[in-house]
C-alpha cells in the first residue's frame, strides 16, 4: 500500500498530539473525594418521576407540576401531612361551609405576590377558581372544580365560593389540590391570561429560582414569606423517571428523598444505606383485570365469573409486585370513603368453582387476548393470569403494547381482556367517574353501563354525609363486580426512602408535600 501525503495547515502529528492530550485531560478524575452529601448546606434534594410541564394550575398535568405549584403558590387549604386524609389552613384565615352550596372564606392578610403584584385578595381567589371552569380557558382540570358557579367577593380578603349543587370533593380535591392554587389576577391578566413554564408571580414559602429542563428545578426560600418558616433554604427537584437510577442516586448520597421500586422494598426493610429510613405508604392507584362486555367472546356472564374466580390475586401480587402490596377490594383505596372491607370474589382463586362456572357457561375451547402495557410489572402479572386461567382450560394470549397504543384502547373494538391501572385523587368520586355510561368510548374500556352505578356516581358526589357516601360507593363497587367485568387486583403501594437529616412531610398516599419537609 502506498500513501500519498498531502500538505495541510494542520499537521497530522500535531493533530494526534492534541487529541491525545485532550483525551488524557478528559480522563482526569476531577471529582475524587470532593462530593458532599445531599442534605448538607440547607439543600434538600428530592426526586420527581417527571419534569415540570406547566407553571399554570389550569394546565398542570398532575402531581409532578403540583409538587412545585404547592410550594410556590398558596391555596385556601392544603393537605395535612400524615397517615390520615385531612386538610389544614393555608392562605385562608377562616373557611366554613355555610350551606351545601356556599363556602365562606377569609384570607390571611400577610400573603403577597412577587414581582410587585401586591397582596393576595379575594379577587385573586375569584379569578383563579373561575378561570379553571371558564370555557375559554379550556382547562383539562375543569372537572376537579365540579359544579363551581362563581366566587362572590364580599371584601378585600373575604368571599364566598358558590356551587351550582353540592360537591363533596371540593374539600378533598378542588381546594387542596391542583385547582386550588391561587394565582395573581393582575399578573395573569398582564400576561394575557396564560403562563407556560416561567412563574408570573409567586406567593408561597418557596420561589422557583431556576428550571433546567430534564435536569433540575430549584426552589429557594421566599424572603417575604410571613408564615411558618420553611426548613430548607433550597429544594432541588430532580426529574428521574427510572426508580432504580433514583435508588442508586440515593445510595450515592445525591438524593435525600425518593420513591423506590417495590422490588427493592425487602432490601430496604433490612436496612437503608447512610442511616436513611424506609417508609411504606399505601397508594391510591388501582389495578384490575377488565373484560370487554361488548366483545362477542365475553358475552357469557358465567364465563366472566369463571375468569374472576380463576385468577389468584395473591400469586399475581407475589410475582409482579414482590409481595410488597395487598390485594384490593375495588377501585376505592383504603382510607377513603367507600373502601370495601372485602370484595365479593375473594382474592384467592377457587379453581373448583371457576371450573364449575365455566361448565355452566357451556363455553369450550375458550381463547382470549389479554392486552397489557410493556412494563415488567404488568407483563409479569399477565403471565401469572395466563397460567392460572390455563388451569381451568382457558387459553390466554398476552398482547404487550407500547404506552401510546395501549392508552388508545378505547377505540379498540377487539379489546377482550385488559390489565389496567388508573391513578387517583383522594376522593371516591374520581374513581367512579371513569366507569359511568358516558365514559364508554373514552376511559370505560369494559363498556360497563349500569343505571344504578351512574346514579350512585352522581348522588354520592353531592352528599356531605360521609357515612352515606361510604355506603353508596361500596354498593357501586359491588355492582361493578357483579357484572363479571372486573377482577380487582391491588392499589399498589408507595415505598419511599429518606436520608437521616430529613423529616419528610407526606400525604397518606406517600406523595411529597415539599413545603412542609423538615430537618432532623
Amino acid at each position, binding site marked *: *500500500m*502506498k*500513501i*500519498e501525503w*498531502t500538505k495541510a495547515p494542520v499537521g*497530522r*502529528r500535531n493533530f*494526534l498530539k492534541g*487529541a*491525545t492530550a*485532550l*483525551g*488524557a485531560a*478528559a*480522563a482526569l*478524575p*476531577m*471529582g*475524587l*473525594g470532593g*462530593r458532599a452529601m445531599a442534605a448538607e448546606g440547607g439543600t434538600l434534594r428530592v426526586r420527581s418521576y417527571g419534569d415540570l*410541564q*406547566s407553571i399554570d394550575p389550569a394546565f398542570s*398535568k*398532575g402531581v409532578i407540576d403540583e409538587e412545585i405549584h404547592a410550594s410556590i403558590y398558596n391555596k385556601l387549604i392544603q393537605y395535612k401531612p400524615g397517615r390520615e386524609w385531612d386538610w389544614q389552613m393555608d392562605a385562608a384565615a377562616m373557611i366554613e361551609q355555610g350551606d351545601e352550596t356556599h363556602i365562606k372564606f377569609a384570607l390571611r392578610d400577610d400573603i403577597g405576590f412577587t414581582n410587585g403584584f401586591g397582596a393576595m385578595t379575594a379577587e385573586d381567589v375569584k379569578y383563579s377558581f373561575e378561570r379553571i371552569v371558564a*370555557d375559554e380557558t*379550556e382547562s*383539562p382540570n*375543569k*372537572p376537579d372544580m365540579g359544579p363551581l358557579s362563581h366566587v362572590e367577593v364580599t371584601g378585600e380578603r373575604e368571599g364566598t365560593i358558590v356551587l351550582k349543587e353540592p360537591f363533596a370533593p371540593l374539600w378533598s380535591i378542588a381546594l387542596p389540590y391542583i385547582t386550588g392554587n391561587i394565582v395573581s389576577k393582575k399578573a395573569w391578566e398582564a400576561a394575557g391570561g*396564560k403562563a*407556560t*413554564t416561567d412563574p408570573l408571580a409567586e406567593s408561597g414559602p418557596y420561589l422557583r429560582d431556576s428550571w433546567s*429542563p*430534564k*435536569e*433540575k428545578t430549584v426552589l429557594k426560600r421566599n424572603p417575604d414569606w410571613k408564615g411558618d418558616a420553611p426548613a430548607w433554604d433550597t429544594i432541588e427537584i*430532580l*426529574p*428521574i*423517571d*427510572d426508580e432504580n*437510577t*433514583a435508588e*442508586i*442516586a440515593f*445510595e*450515592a448520597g*445525591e*438524593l435525600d428523598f425518593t420513591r423506590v421500586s417495590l422490588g427493592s422494598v425487602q432490601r430496604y426493610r433490612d436496612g437503608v444505606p447512610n442511616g436513611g429510613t424506609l417508609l411504606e405508604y399505601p397508594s391510591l392507584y388501582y389495578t384490575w383485570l377488565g373484560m370487554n362486555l361488548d366483545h362477542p367472546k365475553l358475552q357469557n356472564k358465567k364465563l366472566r365469573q369463571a375468569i374472576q374466580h380463576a385468577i389468584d390475586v395473591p400469586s399475581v401480587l407475589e410475582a409482579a409486585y414482590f409481595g410488597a402490596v395487598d390485594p384490593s377490594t375495588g377501585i376505592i383505596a383504603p382510607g377513603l370513603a367507600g373502601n370495601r372491607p372485602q370484595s365479593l370474589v375473594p382474592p384467592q382463586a377457587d379453581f373448583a368453582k371457576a371450573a364449575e362456572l365455566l361448565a355452566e357457561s357451556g363455553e369450550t375451547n375458550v381463547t382470549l387476548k389479554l392486552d397489557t402495557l410493556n412494563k415488567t410489572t404488568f407483563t409479569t402479572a399477565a403471565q401469572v393470569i395466563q397460567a392460572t386461567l390455563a388451569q381451568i382450560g382457558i387459553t390466554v394470549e398476552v398482547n404487550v403494547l*407500547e*404506552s*401510546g*397504543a395501549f*392508552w*388508545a384502547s378505547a*377505540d379498540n373494538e377487539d379489546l377482550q381482556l385488559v390489565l389496567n391501572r388508573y391513578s387517583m385523587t383522594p376522593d371516591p368520586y374520581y374513581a367512579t367517574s*371513569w366507569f359511568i355510561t358516558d365514559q364508554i368510548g*373514552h*376511559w370505560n374500556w369494559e363498556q360497563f353501563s349500569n343505571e344504578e352505578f351512574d346514579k350512585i356516581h352522581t348522588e354520592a358526589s353531592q352528599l356531605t354525609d360521609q357515612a352515606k357516601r361510604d355506603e353508596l360507593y361500596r354498593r357501586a363497587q359491588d355492582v361493578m363486580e357483579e357484572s363479571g367485568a372486573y377482577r380487582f387486583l391491588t392499589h399498589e403501594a408507595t415505598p419511599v426512602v429518606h436520608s437521616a437529616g430529613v423529616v419528610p412531610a407526606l400525604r397518606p398516599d406517600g406523595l411529597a408535600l415539599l413545603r412542609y419537609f423538615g430537618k432532623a
Partner: protein
Amino acid sequence: MLLYALRRFGLALLILIVAVTVMFLMIRAVPGDPVQIMLGPRATPELQARLTAELALDQPIWKQLVIFYGNLLQGDLGIDVFSGRSVTDIVFQQLPHTLWLILGSIIWSATLGIGLGAYAAAHPNTLIDRITAAISVSFVAAPAFVVALLSLLVFAVHLQWFPAIGAGEGFWDRLNHLVLPAFAIGLSWVGYIARLVRASMLEVMGESHIRTARAFGINERRVVLVYALRIAILPVVTVIGVGMGFLLSSAVFAEIVFARPGLGKLVIDSITTRNYPIVMGSVLISTGLFVVSTALADLINAWLDPRARTAH
C-alpha cells in the same frame, strides 16, 4: 477536493431528507390518538379540536408533510404542545449535553483504543499482544448498560468518586458528571478501535516504506508511531464518523441510567407522549448530526488519502 466535498454534502442532504420523511411517516403510522395522549383524559373536546387543528392532524398526511417542510424552510420547528415553548429552543437546550457525552466518549475511547492497538501491533504474537486482544474483545463484548450500572455501583455508590446522576453545573462539574456515562458508552469502542488499529497497523508494518525506514536505521518507536500509526489510523476516522449514530443511540440509555438531560432522553419521552413537534425536531437534529459526521469523516479521509476522492 471542493467538488468532492460538494458531492458528499449533497448526498448528506438527500439522506437527511429521506430519513426525516420516513420518520415523519412512521411516527404518524403508530397507533394512538396523539392529541388524547398529549392532553390526558380530561381535556375538553374544544381543546382537543384546537390542538388537532394546530398540529394539522386533521389534514391528509401528504399535506402535513408539506406543511412540515414549509415550516422547516422558514426555520420553524413548531411549538411544544405541553409547555408552549419553541421546539428549536428545547432541542438546542438538550443538544449540548448529548454532544458533550458523545465527544467525551470518542476522545477517551479513541485515545485508549489507538494506544492499545498500536502497542499490540508493535508486539505481535507476544503475551502482551494476547492480553491486549483479550482486553479488547472483552470491552467489545461488554454491553454498555451493564457497564453503566456496574460503574455506577462501584464508582458512584461504593467509592463515591464520581456523581451518579445529572449533568452538573460549570465546566469542571460538568466534566466530572461526564466521566461515568462517557466511560460506559465508550468502553466497547475502546476494544473495537484497538482491534481495528492493530489489524490496520500490522498491514501497514509490512509495507515497503516501513521496511525502508527500518533499513535506514530509524528508531523503531518512531517507525511505529510516526510512519505506521498515522496511516493505520485512517480507518478509525471513518469508524468514528459512522459511530456517531451508534453513540447517539447509546446516549439514549446513558441519559436514562444516569438521569442526564439530553437529546436521546428527549426523543424517548416525546415518542411515548406522541409529542410530534419535539420528535421531529429531535430526529432532524440527530439525523443531521449523523450525516454530517459521516460526511466529515469521508472528507477527512479524502484529505488524508487523495485516492478516496475518486474511489466512489
